C-alpha cells in the first residue's frame, strides 16, 4: 500500500517536471531513454545517477507504470493521469454510452430505494440514497468535463493551421459529432433514455416523500429533497451541455460539409467541362451579371441637351407617299465608315486645308458631322499635320470659325 501523502508530496515537488511530461504522455507512451532525455533537458545540472533515482522514485510510487508487454516503455498511472488532467484543466471527451450506463445504474438504485422503503429498512434506504446522490454527482462531473472537452474540440478546429485542408482540420469535429453529439441528442430527447430514467427516479423519490408523511419518517426529508434537487440539476445540466455542444460544433460541421460539397462540385464541374466543353456547365447555376460597361463620355451640357430633347420629343406625322407622286430620284448615299473616310483622305493627300476639303466632299453635310470628321481625320496618326491660320468656313447651315490643318503624308511615306 503506497502512502497517499508520499504520492501527493512527490507530485507537488516534481510538478515542474511532471507537467510538461503530461503532454507527452497524452500523445502516447515513452521509452526509458526518452524519459531520461526529457528529464535531462529539464534538469541540466543533474547527473545521470540523479535522474535514475528520480525515475526510480516515480516508479516505486506508481506514478509511472510500465506498459503491458513493453517493460521498457512507461506511461502515467491512469488514475494519476486523470488527476493531473483535472488539475491542468485538460478535458478528454467521454462517451455518451457512459452517461447511459450511469442512468441505468440510477434506475437500479431507485429500485433498491423502493425495496428498502417497502421493507422499512431505514439504514439501507439511507445508504442507497447516498449512493444515488454520489452517482448523480458523477454524471454532473462527467457532463461538466465533456462540455469543457467539447470547447477544446471546437477551439482546436478553429485555431488549427489554416493551411491544413478543412476536412483534416475538422476531422475531430465530425467524429465528435457522430460519436458524442448525435447519440446525446437521442439520449436527451423527450422520449430518450435520459428523460425516462430521470422521470422514474424522480417518481420514486416523490412517492417516498409522500409515503414518509403518511407512514412516518425512515430518513430525513432533507436528504430526499436534496437528492431530488440534484436529479433536476443533472437533467438541466445535460440539456445545457447538449445545447452548448450543438452551438459549438454545428456551425463547424456545416462548414466542413459545405467545404466538401464545394470541392466536390468544382471537381465535378471540371470533369464535365473536360468531357463536354465549357458550355456543359448548367446555365441555371451561372451567376448573371451585367457586362462591365464602358464609362459614358459626354459633357454635362450634352447630357442635359439629350434629356431635354427626350422630354420635348414629338413624333413627326407619318407621311405616306402618294400613289401618283414622283419618287425621289437617286438612292440614299451609303453610310460612310471611318475606314472609308480615312481611305478617301489618304488618296487625296497632300491636303492644303482639311476643312475646305471636307466641305468640297460633303457640301450638304451637317455641321456636327463635318466637325466630327475634321476632328477624327486631323488626329489620325497616319497623317502629318500643320496648323493653319484661323478662318471662317461656311457649311450648309452655319458659319464656322476654326484653325484648320494641312495634311501631309508622314515623312517615311513621302521619302
Amino acid at each position, binding site marked *: 500500500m503506497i502512502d497517499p501523502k508520499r504520492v501527493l508530496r512527490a507530485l507537488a515537488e516534481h510538478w515542474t517536471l511532471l507537467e510538461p511530461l503530461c503532454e507527452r504522455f497524452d500523445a502516447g507512451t515513452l521509452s526509458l531513454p526518452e524519459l531520461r532525455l526529457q528529464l535531462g533537458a529539464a534538469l541540466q545540472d543533474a547527473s545521470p545517477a540523479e535522474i535514475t533515482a528520480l525515475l526510480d522514485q516515480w516508479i516505486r510510487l506508481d506514478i509511472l507504470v510500465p506498459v503491458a508487454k513493453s517493460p521498457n516503455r512507461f506511461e502515467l498511472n491512469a488514475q494519476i493521469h486523470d488527476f493531473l488532467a483535472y488539475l491542468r484543466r485538460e478535458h478528454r471527451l467521454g462517451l455518451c454510452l457512459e452517461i447511459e450506463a450511469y442512468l441505468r445504474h440510477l434506475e437500479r438504485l431507485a429500485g433498491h430505494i423502493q425495496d428498502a422503503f417497502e421493507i422499512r429498512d431505514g439504514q439501507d434506504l439511507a445508504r442507497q440514497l447516498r449512493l444515488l446522490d454520489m452517482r448523480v454527482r458523477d454524471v454532473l462531473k462527467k457532463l461538466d468535463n465533456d462540455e469543457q472537452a467539447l470547447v477544446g474540440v471546437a477551439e482546436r478546429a478553429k485555431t488549427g493551421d*489554416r*493551411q*491544413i*485542408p*478543412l476536412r483534416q*482540420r475538422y476531422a475531430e469535429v465530425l467524429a465528435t459529432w457522430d460519436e458524442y453529439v448525435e447519440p446525446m441528442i437521442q439520449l436527451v430527447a423527450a422520449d430518450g433514455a435520459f428523460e425516462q430514467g430521470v422521470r422514474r427516479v424522480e417518481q420514486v423519490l416523490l412517492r417516498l416523500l409522500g409515503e414518509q408523511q403518511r407512514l412516518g419518517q425512515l430518513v430525513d426529508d432533507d436528504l430526499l429533497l436534496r437528492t431530488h434537487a440534484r436529479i433536476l440539476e443533472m437533467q438541466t445540466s445535460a440539456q445545457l451541455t447538449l445545447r452548448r455542444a450543438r452551438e459549438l460544433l454545428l456551425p463547424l460541421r456545416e*462548414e466542413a460539409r*459545405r*467545404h466538401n*460539397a*464545394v*470541392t*466536390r*462540385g*468544382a*471537381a*465535378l*464541374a*471540371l470533369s*464535365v*467541362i*473536360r468531357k*463536354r*466543353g*465549357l*458550355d*456543359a*456547365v*448548367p*446555365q*441555371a*447555376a*451561372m*451567376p*448573371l*451579371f*451585367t*457586362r*462591365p*460597361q464602358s464609362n459614358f463620355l459626354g459633357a454635362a451640357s450634352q447630357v442635359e441637351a439629350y434629356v431635354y430633347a427626350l422630354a420635348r420629343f414629338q413624333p413627326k406625322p407619318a407621311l405616306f407617299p402618294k400613289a401618283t407622286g414622283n419618287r425621289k430620284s437617286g438612292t*440614299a*448615299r*451609303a*453610310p*460612310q*465608315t*471611318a475606314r472609308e*473616310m480615312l481611305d478617301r483622305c489618304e488618296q487625296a493627300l497632300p491636303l492644303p486645308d482639311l476643312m475646305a476639303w471636307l466641305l468640297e466632299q460633303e457640301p450638304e453635310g451637317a455641321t456636327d*458631322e463635318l466637325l*466630327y470628321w475634321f476632328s*477624327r481625320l486631323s488626329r489620325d496618326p497616319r497623317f502629318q499635320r500643320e496648323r493653319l491660320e484661323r478662318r471662317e468656313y461656311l457649311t450648309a447651315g452655319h458659319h464656322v470659325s476654326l484653325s484648320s490643318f494641312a495634311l501631309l503624308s508622314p515623312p517615311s511615306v513621302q521619302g
Partner: protein
Amino acid sequence: MNIDLKEMTQLAPIFRELFKGYHLSRSEPECYAQLSTMQDQYRALFKALGYELVCDPRGFYYFVPEQVSVGVNKTAQRLALFTFILVESLADQGRDPLAVLDGGTVGRDELPALLEKYRDLFVQAEVTTLEELEEKIIRRLTQLGFAEDSNGIYRFLPPMHRFLDVCLSVQQDRDLAATLHSKDLPLPAPVLLDEQSAEESEEDALARAIAEEQEFDA
C-alpha cells in the same frame, strides 16, 4: 415607404457602380455602409426605376441584369471556370479553398503554374497566355467587385460566394442525376452574349449612328 433623397448621400456612386455590374461589398466601405443601413429604401427606389437590387446576407449587393440584355456570357463562364480550377488546385495543394476564396489571397506569381497545369481547360475559355489570364479573368474579377488587386496580391471578396454557389449547385445537380440513374446529364448549353458584336469600335459605332440618322431624316 418614405424615400428621402437627401439622406441617400451615396446614391450617385452606388448607382454608378451597380449599373456597371459591380458587386458592392465591404471593400467599398462608404457605399456598403449606407446600403446596409438603408437597404429597404435603396431597394424600393431602384425597383421603381426598374432595377432589382439583390442584398445577399453574406455581405454584398448587386443588380440583377435584365434577362434580355444579358445572357450567361463568356465572362461568367470564364470566371466560373477559374473558380473551379482554383478550388481544385488549392485542395490539391492541401490548402483550404474556402478560406482563400472567402477573404483570402492568391499571388500573381501563382498564376503561371495554374495556367500550365490547367492549360487544356483554360484553352476552352480562350485563355492561352498569362496576359490573357490577367486580362480576361483577373481584370474582370476586379472590375465586377469579386476581387481586389493590391500590387499583384489578389484578395477575394464576399461576392465570390456567387461562384462558390455554382460549385454547390453543380454538386447537387450531379446528385440529382445520380438518383435518377441518368447516364447523360441534361445540361443545357448557356445562351452566350456575343462579345464580338459588342466590341464594335467607337468610330464605327458613331459613323453607323450618323448614317442611320441620315437615313431616318431622308
